[in-house]
Each structure stands twice: as structure tokens, then as C-alpha cells.
């Protein structure tokens, strides 16, 4: 993950064998792979304990579909965190959009489903735009702004919904079945989420705009001086993050069917945790959306696996917490080691 911030010293001529070893070493050191490895291990162990965790009809489907909501949030969060910001309002955005989805279907029962997805995206983007404008133009720390909008959006939601709730019977069957529909055994929601993750990942990795996001997060002042469109890029990152939270809200409605005013509460912290576990540095400038996606998969799967493994409810949060701290400490250790290596390399030459 550090390869985004540090340019490698020009490599001396090397044999193909050592090049292969280096690639292998890099892969093994990569956070994305490490998280995936833990994930696979977890699934294997849990399946050994209870075979229908993976092989049951529901097991396979749930394994894939349950993380889809967090996948979207983690992808959006990654975009924002890379620019050295954070978006804490995504949980409220998700809840509001989920409720809006339900309300739309109550008003217009035969609304085409794709239109509802678009409405969710647009509404989320609008809420994200508010965050983006305040952060990019107000130059106030995103932590404070989005903490504020987290509460405001939730307040609006509480006022709007009150003690009312959307029930599955309010939603059309065609929409609800999206929550469980599968294409070649892969749930539709998971496919959409993975396509989104791939698109965001491709953009971050290859496009000019994506690289500029990293540059902004590595050193905002330098990026400004260099003439990068900091305001515009940060604004865009928040809008996309909001839009993905909106999409996640539509997913939530399709998957869970009942939406009350506490929908999506605290999920913003899981989104940040997923990104951090996946190797996205909380101070911006490094990390990949693949890592965040793997982190999201791991977090959700841990939640689902621990009860099967017989670990009581109360310990599950502690395990997740330990994982987050472990990930950050690991980052620190790896960075130290790399710095030492680079210094050694400089001294030798």
C-alpha cells in the first residue's frame, strides 16, 4: 500500500528469479492479501464446525450477500479517507435513503425498480454534496462537519419517520426478492456491489483524478501549491461517498424489508473500520479500495462466524476492536521497517 506514496529507488539489474521473489514477497506483504487470507481461514474454520455455513443453500447466499451493504459504504469511505477526510454521516444517509425508498413504493406501488435505485443514488449524492460543500469550502475538519450532519440527518429522519416504520408488506415483492435473488448462485446485490468496488478501484488506480486524490491526501498543502483542483476533487469524493451510501440504503430496504428510524445507526463506524482493517491509512494518501472491500467482507463475516463458533455475543465487538488495533499497529510496524530499509539502502549507495 505504501507504493502509492513512495517511489521505489531505481532497481539495479536483477535476475528474473529475484524479480519473481520480489513480486511474491510484495504480494505476501500486501495488506489486501493478508486480509483475504484471514477471511478464507475464518470461512474454512467455521465451515469445519458447521458445514452449512458455506455449503447450505442459505449459508452460501448469506456469506456473499450480507457484506454487500458494507462493501458499498467501505468503497465510498475509502475515496474520502484517501483525501485525508472522513465521512461519518453515511449511516444516517443510508437510513434516510432506505426510508425514502419505502415511502416511494408506498406512494407509487408500481414504480420501476431501476428508477428507485437511481433515486437512492441521487438522494445520497445530494446529502453527500452538503458534506462536500461544507468541508471543501468551509475548510472545517471533515470529522466535525460529518459528525454534525450525522446528527442532523438522523434528526430529520426521526422527525420524518417518528415511530412509524416501513414493513415488508409495504414493498413490492419484485423489489424484496432482489434481496435474495441470485445469478449463477451469486446474489444480485453482491454483483452490483462488486461492480461498484471494481469501478472505484479502477478509477483510483488508473485515472488522473484518482491519483490526484492520493496526492491530496498525502500532502494537502503541496497538492494545493502544485495546482491540483483540491476543492473540486474533495467535493467529488464526498458526493460519490454519499451516492454510494444512498445506494446502500436501497440495498438495505431490499434486504431487510423493514425500516425504522434507527436503520443504519453506527454502521458508519463499521465502514471506517473496514477501510482501516483493509489498509487504508486514516491520515490519507494510501490504501486501496480492494483492501477496504476485503476488510468489509472480513468484518461482516466475523460477525456471522463468531456465533457459529460458539463465541458469545458480548465478545464479538471486542474481537472486531482488537482487529482494528492490530491492523493499525501492523501498519506502524511495517512502515518503520520500510523506513529503516530505505535508510539502509541510501547509506549503502
Amino acid at each position: 500500500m505504501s507504493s502509492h506514496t513512495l517511489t521505489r529507488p531505481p532497481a539495479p539489474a536483477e535476475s528474473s528469479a529475484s524479480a519473481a521473489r520480489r513480486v511474491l514477497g510484495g504480494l505476501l506483504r500486501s495488506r489486501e492479501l493478508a486480509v483475504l487470507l484471514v477471511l478464507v481461514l475464518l470461512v474454512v474454520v467455521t465451515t469445519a464446525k458447521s458445514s452449512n455455513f458455506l455449503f447450505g443453500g442459505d449459508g452460501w447466499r448469506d456469506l456473499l450477500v450480507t457484506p454487500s451493504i458494507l462493501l458499498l459504504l467501505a468503497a465510498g469511505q475509502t475515496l474520502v479517507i484517501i483525501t485525508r477526510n472522513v465521512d461519518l454521516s453515511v449511516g444516517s444517509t443510508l437510513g434516510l435513503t432506505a426510508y425514502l425508498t419505502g415511502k416511494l413504493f408506498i406512494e407509487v406501488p408500481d414504480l420501476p425498480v431501476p428508477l428507485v435505485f437511481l433515486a437512492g443514488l441521487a438522494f445520497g449524492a445530494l446529502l453527500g454534496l452538503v458534506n462536500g460543500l461544507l468541508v471543501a469550502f468551509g475548510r472545517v475538519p471533515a470529522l466535525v462537519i460529518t459528525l454534525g450532519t450525522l446528527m442532523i440527518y438522523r434528526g430529520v429522519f426521526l422527525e420524518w419517520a417518528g415511530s412509524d416504520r416501513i414493513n415488508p408488506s409495504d414493498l413490492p415483492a419484485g423489489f424484496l426478492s432482489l434481496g435474495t435473488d441470485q445469478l449463477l448462485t451469486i446474489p444480485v446485490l453482491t454483483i452490483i456491489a462488486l461492480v461498484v468496488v471494481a469501478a472505484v478501484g479502477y478509477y483510483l488506480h488508473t485515472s488522473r483524478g484518482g491519483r490526484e486524490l492520493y496526492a491530496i491526501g498525502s500532502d494537502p498543502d503541496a497538492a494545493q501549491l502544485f495546482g491540483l483542483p483540491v476543492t473540486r476533487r474533495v467535493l467529488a469524493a464526498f458526493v460519490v461517498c454519499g451516492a454510494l451510501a444512498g445506494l446502500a440504503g436501497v440495498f438495505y430496504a431490499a434486504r431487510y424489508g423493514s425500516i425504522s428510524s434507527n436503520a443504519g445507526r453506527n454502521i458508519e463506524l463499521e465502514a471506517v473500520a473496514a477501510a482501516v482493517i483493509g489498509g487504508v491509512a486514516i491520515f490519507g494518501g494510501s490504501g486501496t479500495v480492494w483492501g477496504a472491500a476485503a476488510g468489509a467482507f472480513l468484518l461482516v463475516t466475523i460477525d456471522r462466524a463468531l456465533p457459529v463458533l460458539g463465541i458469545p455475543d458480548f465478545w464479538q465487538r471486542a474481537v472486531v476492536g482488537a482487529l482494528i488495533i492490530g491492523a493499525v499497529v501492523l501498519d506502524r510496524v511495517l512502515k518503520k521497517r520500510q523506513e529503516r530499509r530505505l535508510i539502509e539502502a541510501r547509506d549503502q549507495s
Partner: protein
Amino acid sequence: MKNLQKRTAALAGLALLASLGLTACGSDDDGGDGGDGGSGGDSSSITMIPKNLGNPYFDASTAGAEAAAEEFGGSVEEVGPDTATPDSQVSFINTAAQQGAGAVVVSANDPSAICDALEEASSAGVKVVTFDSDTEPECRDIFVNQADAAGIAAKQVELIAAQIGDEGEVAILSAAANATNQNAWIELMEADLEENHPNIELVDIVYGDDDDQKSFDQTAALLSAHPNLKGIISPTTVGIAAAARYLSTSDAKGKVALTGLGAPSQMKAFIEDGTVTEFALWNPEDLGYLAAFAANALASGDIEGAEGDTFEAGKLGEYTVGADGVVVLGEPYVFDAENIDQFKF
């Protein structure tokens, strides 16, 4: 410096926005009207004050009270706030007292916030009955309680035992781990199962925190962790609805029984598609019916609300006032495919 000013301005803007949002929450409770209908000093005129208007649950309880009034020849008037905020019921209680209502029947939004108003009404000769949600005991004459813990626990055990043929593994999906009422029910259910249903094994208790998503995921985890599970009891309306939603999309539909306490409007779809056969809750219509009879008995001087007083409540039979002026409605009401269409809450 300029930057600082900008920052302050932005924060001030934020604070303004936040305060706007907050005031918007509190500005709705001036909509109701208590002006018409009070017939002044009539002992059988009853004022119903639910937690809020437009709530199907309380629409049902008021309908029950009206049915009762028809039987004993009184009148029922419903007034109340639009939102269930702690002190929003005060003005309605005051108005009822000024109009000289025979009794007020209140579902309290807050156990102490409306106490002063109730005491004032009481000293003006108005009898005070609480139902569904109580105040501090000294603020009212009688509390009509929808169900007691023992009745709730026993009914749920009875339902699950009948649905799984009195043997096999069951689990409980509760609300929060520190929810007092839930834990009291769970304890009673555990004791009941152990004593009277030796072939039913309670294998797990999980907590969904009354959150749709968490309850849903916990149900999935339960089924995955216990392949031989025969039944789930969820003594919380959110939990049972989320569990039903998961079961209805799962291979376990029809194989794993689900029962507990649920709201008919939320459970209707799952009764119809066969995921759930029977679940329980009190009947708010009966609750309003009983509360109206209790209010009438107080207002006409038949009882004083002391422990041991008895009164007739029409079709529900005779009731005795228990300790602390509490009257218990009785066993929870069982909803199934036959009757679920009659309920709108």
C-alpha cells in the same frame, strides 16, 4: 485570522442548522383540540388521552373504549397530542379537568412529567386511569396493565411447544441484553421449559437490540449455528418481524417454527405466506374496553381503586384490583390466519 473567522462562521451556521432541526421536533404538539364535546360533570363521560393520535394501536384501544361506553351508557371522547413527547399530554389533561370530565384514561408518555396535571385533575374530582403505559403509582387511581410477565412467558412457551410437538431445540431472539422486561420473561420461560417441557432444549439466547438489521443477521446466525433448531421465540415485535423476514426467504421456512410477541400489521405478510402460524400480543381493543369500564366504575363510585375492589367489565367478565391499584387484562391474545385481518395496528 481570516481562516478562523470563516471557521467560526461555518460552525455557527452548523449550530443554527442543528437548533432548527431540534426545534422542528418539538413544535408539533399544538394541533389537537379539546374544546368540544365535554358535557360537564357527567360521571360517565370519559376522556381518552393516548400517547399520540394517528397511531393504529391507540385507534384500536379507543374503539374498544367506545364499545364499552355504549354498553354502560356513557360517552368517550379522544383527545391527544400529535407526537409522543413527555409533557405534550399536560394541556389535554388540564382541559379535561376544567370541563369536568368524569374520568381521564391516559397512556402516559412519561411516568412523572404529567403527574402534576393528573393530581390537579384528581383534586377537582376527576378519576384517573392509566393504561398501556403507567405513571408513578401515586399519580393515578388505577393502572390497567396489558399483561403480566408470567402470563406473557407462559403463553409463548405454550405456543412454541404446540408448534414443534413439544420436543427439540429452541432458541430465543431477544431485544437488548439489558432489557429488564425481556430478561424477566426469559427467566420465567427458562423455568417453565425446564419444569414442564423436559424434551425441549433451549440451546441459545441471542440479542438483536430491537434493531431490524441485527435481529435479521442474528436469526441467520442462529440457523447456521444450530442445524437442528426446531423453533425460535422472539418476545419483541422488532425481533419477531426481522426473524420472520429472514425465515421467509430461507430454506428453513416451514421447518423452523417462529413465535413470540408481534404486531399484526408487521406480521400479516408472514402469517399469509406460512412462515409463522401463531404469535401473541395483548389486544389493544380489549385493553381500551377494560380501561373504560374501570374508569366508569371509579367515576360512578362503585370502586375506589383499592386492592381487592372488584368490578364488572362487560364481555371480559369480573376484574379485581391488585396491589398498587393495578388491574391485569389477562393472557396475551393469540393472532393467527383466522383473525389477523381484523387488526390494523
